């Protein structure tokens, strides 16, 4: 059923600390490892020794924030499904493959019902869903549903692979519906925020903003960080083939 539950008993989700994430990609690897060997179609890689690409449920971007004065700072930015309360990806699904669980709020894809239309990936503002090009099926973060309730693995491992592996302690897992849970307290103390709140998705996952940096020595280091920087302008990308021809023909008009 692609109707969303009116409310969920729990809101299981992740809290991601942008202050401590060091961008090591350990969670990306752990996520891919677990989710390729366990539930559902494996996460494929294509063209591994060429123009490589693959399916991932969790990806790490990095952003630079440049204040008006002083040096820019870099923030590593892990992103996986936010298990939204008002998940637009679920309601658009025609086959009923996408659903949100009433008991714990996890958003999942039933791979036996998915027809690979990709509409749910278009509906997600965060880019949390990817069609696996080999299996032809929509893949997304399962919140490691096959770990967190799994009584066949030691209790210490009954948390998402990405949380378990993070060496910096930047990923936390728990019930965000319970104000007394450790992660709810963490969110309250650190001022956790929603991504793209204006999209109205009501994400369950929260992000903890980076703490302010100290300013020692910033005054004498506020110019260009590297004297070569101006010479490193990006190389122009020209489309080739048919598009290139179209491009040039339109240019001449």
């Amino acid at each position, binding site marked *: 059923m*692609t*109707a969303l539950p009116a409310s969920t008993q729990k809101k299981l989700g992740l809290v991601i600390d*942008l202050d401590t994430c060091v*961008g090591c990609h350990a969670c990306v690897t752990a996520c891919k490892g677990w989710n390729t060997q366990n539930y559902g179609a494996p996460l494929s890689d294509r063209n591994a020794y060429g*123009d490589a*690409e*693959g*399916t*991932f449920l969790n*990806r790490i*971007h*990095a*952003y*630079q*924030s*440049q*204040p*008006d004065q002083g040096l820019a700072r*870099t923030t590593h930015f892990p*992103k996986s499904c936010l298990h939204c309360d008002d998940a*637009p990806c*679920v*309601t*658009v*699904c*025609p*086959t*009923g*493959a996408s659903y949100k669980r009433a008991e714990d709020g996890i958003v999942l894809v039933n791979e036996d019902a998915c*027809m*690979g*239309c*990709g*509409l749910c*990936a*278009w*509906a*997600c*503002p965060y*880019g949390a869903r*990817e*069609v696996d*090009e080999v*299996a*032809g*099926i929509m893949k997304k973060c399962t919140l490691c549903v096959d770990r967190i309730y799994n009584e066949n693995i030691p209790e210490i491992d009954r948390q998402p692979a990405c949380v378990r592996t993070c060496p910096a302690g930047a990923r936390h897992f728990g019930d965000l519906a319970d104000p007394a849970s450790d992660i709810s307290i963490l969110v309250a103390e650190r001022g956790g925020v*929603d*991504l*793209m709140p*204006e*999209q109205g998705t009501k994400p369950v996952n929260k992000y903890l*903003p*980076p703490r302010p940096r100290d300013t020692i020595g910033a005054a004498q280091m506020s110019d260009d960080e590297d004297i070569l920087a101006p010479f490193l302008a990006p190389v122009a990308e020209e*489309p080739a083939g048919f*598009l290139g021809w*179209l*491009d040039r023909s*339109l*240019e001449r*008009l």
Partner: protein
Amino acid sequence: MHPAPSVILFSTLSGAGFGLFVFLGLMPVPPVGWAAFVFFAVAYALSVAGLLSATFHLKNKKNAWKSYREWRTSWLSREAWAAVFALLTMAVYAIALIFFGVHLAPVGWLGAILSLATVFTTAMIYTQLRAVPRWNQTATPLMFLTFSLAGGAMLSGFVTVAAAFLLAAGGVLLWHWWKGDRRFAEAGTTIQSATRLHDRVTLFEKPHTGDNYLTREMVFRVARKHAVKLRVIAFVLAVVFPLILLLLPMSHALAAVAILSHLAGVLTTRWLFFAEAEHVVGLYYGAHLGKQARAA
């Protein structure tokens, strides 16, 4: 968004096909016998060819039949239902006209409504997506409907009606472009709201070295710089040229040229519909920064 040829072809052809059904269903004196056969053959060819080409972009076609399940929430599912109902209803109407020379007017009206509903549900698949602000506006369903009716009127030979709908479609198209160019800023999603970081935020490193499904599908950027030229070409082919031809004394050859020009123009507008649509996820990949609302 990546303009998938199968989807563009689908919405252009089936739009014209269902538009033709609308006029065949509403005609006070519809053709019978062989003449009816030709009209319905064209309508079925266009609509069914369109629907078939739409299934080409499914990556797991064996589950396509399951798309009938979730009509309660999903516009894509509603489209599947509307299309089947419209095609079946029109089949009854067409068989009566072709083989028995009988005009089942109420069946025709019902078929016309269902055909319009099919075009509307197709448009709503795109309109509903808040993550693609350019599509998420009132003009989107109006554009699909007016173009479908203009194409249908031309195919069924109603010259004045066709001219009126061409004018309407042209107006809605301009509105869609004008509003569409502002929608990203209106939606208010920016790289700051996406990352909740402050100051001037730019992408420092992508999450991977190559492309991925998301960058290929949602962060399409080729030839956007030609958008203005393509808009002019599309507008002339889809609206201006057919209008001029319709005002000349009619002949079958002229009508055919007008229809082909119109369809080529609609194809171009649909290509632009996709190629120009900015998905907010592009912000995470450093795209669309010029489109976002000015940082507060």
